[in-house]
């Protein structure tokens, strides 16, 4: 197995407590940053590391930090986006519940780099037990002098708060998160202005994913250049993947970016192949929002090269033959999976989670779900298959926030790659609606 930077000590007994974490090299990054580095130098290290946002979009973290407006006498904020709710993604929950101090350490270093005096961790409402773990860890960090006034005698002070959401997927969108954190309805804001200029309480704000912030700790410990040596090309470092679905060994894997997808799925070191000796049918590589790919395209690119677990390789071929790395929610589906049902299920989720603010998403997500429901339950027509593609196209790119795209992409991709399966549902409604019936290509029935 490759090198682990985040989860190296995850199985150490009591690592969630301050003492054990400290004994295993914890808070070295904060000491190093506060005692020997200026905030600009911390930002530079993160820039050098090539770290890309781990929440899904993959925007370079160092660059995001350098965009932060810094007007005189105006407070700035660092907000950690711990509202992880994408179906298939559960890496942040794992990281926070096992290694709460890693996130806190990253928050301190990040806040120092950005000049934030107060920072927030906005956590998903359902993760109440993680919230308690974090609050306990924060109390320990205060007691040890790593939070509060004049940290380590450096003159830098920081207060850190954890704030739970109320259970809305949309609050994982950064501006909806900020609205919710301000105590308002979690509707995404119109951009511009961007959070880097007017974020929380209309102050300059950086919103980062849990894993991005945690990754700052190894970057500061080993140096940005060392971190950048890991990985391939512009996909540097390690990343957590939450593998789930029909795998022999689902779970959280920390991988050095660049591992071939085939090795990740089939190697005993990682997922150990598809369960019950079945065949792989399709993979959703980065959480439910990214396009689904059939087996042939997830293992090899259209050009016949090995598909790697990197931002670039997974998106090779655009949306025609590629997908996205996304948030690392790796969902594998075996040959018994009905793609139509799965697509309907995803679109039911987006229908439920649309905030209802802008018209294409509010009306379109519901429409998609209803038509897919019809197709799945044997009442669809050939026309409906084109209809879902057309509706997805009407939503995509025309909404306030990316939830519109997240709802449209999986539907468009499912029809793109599995059109024959949709058509089979229309042509053979009786067979298709039998329990457990699955299309296996060329009219072969189970």
């Amino acid at each position: 197995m490759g090198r682990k930077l985040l989860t190296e000590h995850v199985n150490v007994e009591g690592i969630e407590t301050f003492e054990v974490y400290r004994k295993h090299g914890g808070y070295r990054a904060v000491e190093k940053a506060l005692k020997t580095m200026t905030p600009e130098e911390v930002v530079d290290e993160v820039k050098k590391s090539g770290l890309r946002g781990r929440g899904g979009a993959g925007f370079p973290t160092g660059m995001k930090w350098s965009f932060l407006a810094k007007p005189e006498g105006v407070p700035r904020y660092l907000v950690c986006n711990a509202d992880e709710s994408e179906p298939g993604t559960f890496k942040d929950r794992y990281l926070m519940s096992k290694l709460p101090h890693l996130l806190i350490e990253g928050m301190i270093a990040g806040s120092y780099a950005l000049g934030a005096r107060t920072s927030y961790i906005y956590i998903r409402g359902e993760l109440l037990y993680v919230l308690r773990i974090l609050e306990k860890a924060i109390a320990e960090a205060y007691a040890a002098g790593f939070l509060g006034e004049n940290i380590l005698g450096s003159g830098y002070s920081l207060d850190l708060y954890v704030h739970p959401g109320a259970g809305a997927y949309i609050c994982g969108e950064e501006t909806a998160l900020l609205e919710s954190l301000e105590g308002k309805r979690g509707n995404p804001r119109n951009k511009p202005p961007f959070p880097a200029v007017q974020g929380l309480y209309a102050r300059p704000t950086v919103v980062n994913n849990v894993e991005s912030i945690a990754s700052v700790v190894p970057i500061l410990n080993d140096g940005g250049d060392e971190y950048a040596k890991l990985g391939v090309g512009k996909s540097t470092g390690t990343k957590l993947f939450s593998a789930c679905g029909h795998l022999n060994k689902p779970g959280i894997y920390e991988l050095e970016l660049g591992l071939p997808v085939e090795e990740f799925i089939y190697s005993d070191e990682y997922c150990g192949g598809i369960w019950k000796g079945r065949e792989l049918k399709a993979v959703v590589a980065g959480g439910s929002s990214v396009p689904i790919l059939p087996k042939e395209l997830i293992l090899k690119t259209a050009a016949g090269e090995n598909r790697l677990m990197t931002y670039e390789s997974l998106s090779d071929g655009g949306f025609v033959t590629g997908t996205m790395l996304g948030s690392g929610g790796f969902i594998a589906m075996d040959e018994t999976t009905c793609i139509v049902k799965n697509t309907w299920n995803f679109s039911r989720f987006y229908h439920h989670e649309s905030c209802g603010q802008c018209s294409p998403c509010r009306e379109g997500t519901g429409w998609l779900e209803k038509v897919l429901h019809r197709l799945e339950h044997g009442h669809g027509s050939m026309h409906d298959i084109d209809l879902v593609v057309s509706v997805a196209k009407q939503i995509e790119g025309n909404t306030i926030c990316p939830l519109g795209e997240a709802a449209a992409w999986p539907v468009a991709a499912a029809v793109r790659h599995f059109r024959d399966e949709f058509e089979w549902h229309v042509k053979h409604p009786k067979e298709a609606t039998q329990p457990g019936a699955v299309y296996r290509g060329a009219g072969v029935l189970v």
Partner: protein
Amino acid sequence: MAKITFDGIEVEVPDGTTILNAARKIGGGVVPPAMCYYTPLKGSGGKCRACLVRVAAGSAKDPRPMPKLVASCITPVQDGMVVENTTSPQVLDVRKGIVEMLLINHPLDCPVCDQAGECDLQNFAFEHGVSTTRYEEERRTFEKIDIGPYVQLHMTRCILCYRCVYTADQLTDGRVHGVLGRGDASEIGTYIENIIDNDFSGNVIDVCPVGALTDKTWRFKQRVWFTKPMNAHRECSHEKCNGHVTLWYKGKDVLRVTARKDEYGEVKEWICNECRFDKKETADWIIEGPAHVDRSSVVSQGHYELPVINPQVIADLPESTVRDLQQNPPLKLGGFNG
């Protein structure tokens, strides 16, 4: 100042102006439709996506096109920006899609809706939509709730533009209604059943682009195109109201009082409930003259307004007409927007 090219027309506007307002400066057919943006309401806009336009060049400094269509009502102009609205097939196509989306859950009950004839969605669908629908499933409906003696809420017609929410926020002290629920189940409501009771509550009727909020004192009295709008004013004792209104006449009866609106349906001066609901006699008002209504509006079908002809701008008038005008000059009443 920033100079932009909108549909091939150059216009110069102050920095920070939105694309929509730059287009309104040009006026006429190039102006994008707006269902949720409302100039007097801070924070409004960006929601309905009706005003999406294509930015073919971001600015003189960075002439790259913007990757997605942008909402013209909230996007500020940059010097050298090139915007395509009616000249872009993509924009027109997307707008068709927006009409379709908005009409999914909006009932086509125009024949019994008091807003018909002055409805933004009706105009929008007429101008940009298609006459068929591809939606076959059940449509969203709501239980009727009572929000007070003056304002009728028809939630089923609501397109969730949030204008009434901003109005209540910015005009009154305690907003009691808002958006409840999420997605296509969101609704305007008062939590828990409450009546909207303040001196300016009637203004939510004027800002509503559809017939979701209508005037209870005017319900089912008359189709709007059978009435004649007259601008009028009175000395209003309310400190925030200056009593400048439009009276809607049928014969000698004042059926309805509204605030005065400009050509984009935007209220310039808010009026109080006393002026709106309690003063329905001609004797209460000082009449200024007919309110201007656009020729293309169905409200103009009554042809109540005398033609406004200005020989100085129309060069080639026949001599007989010029002579006729000199002998019988058109009445100069009110003029545009009073």
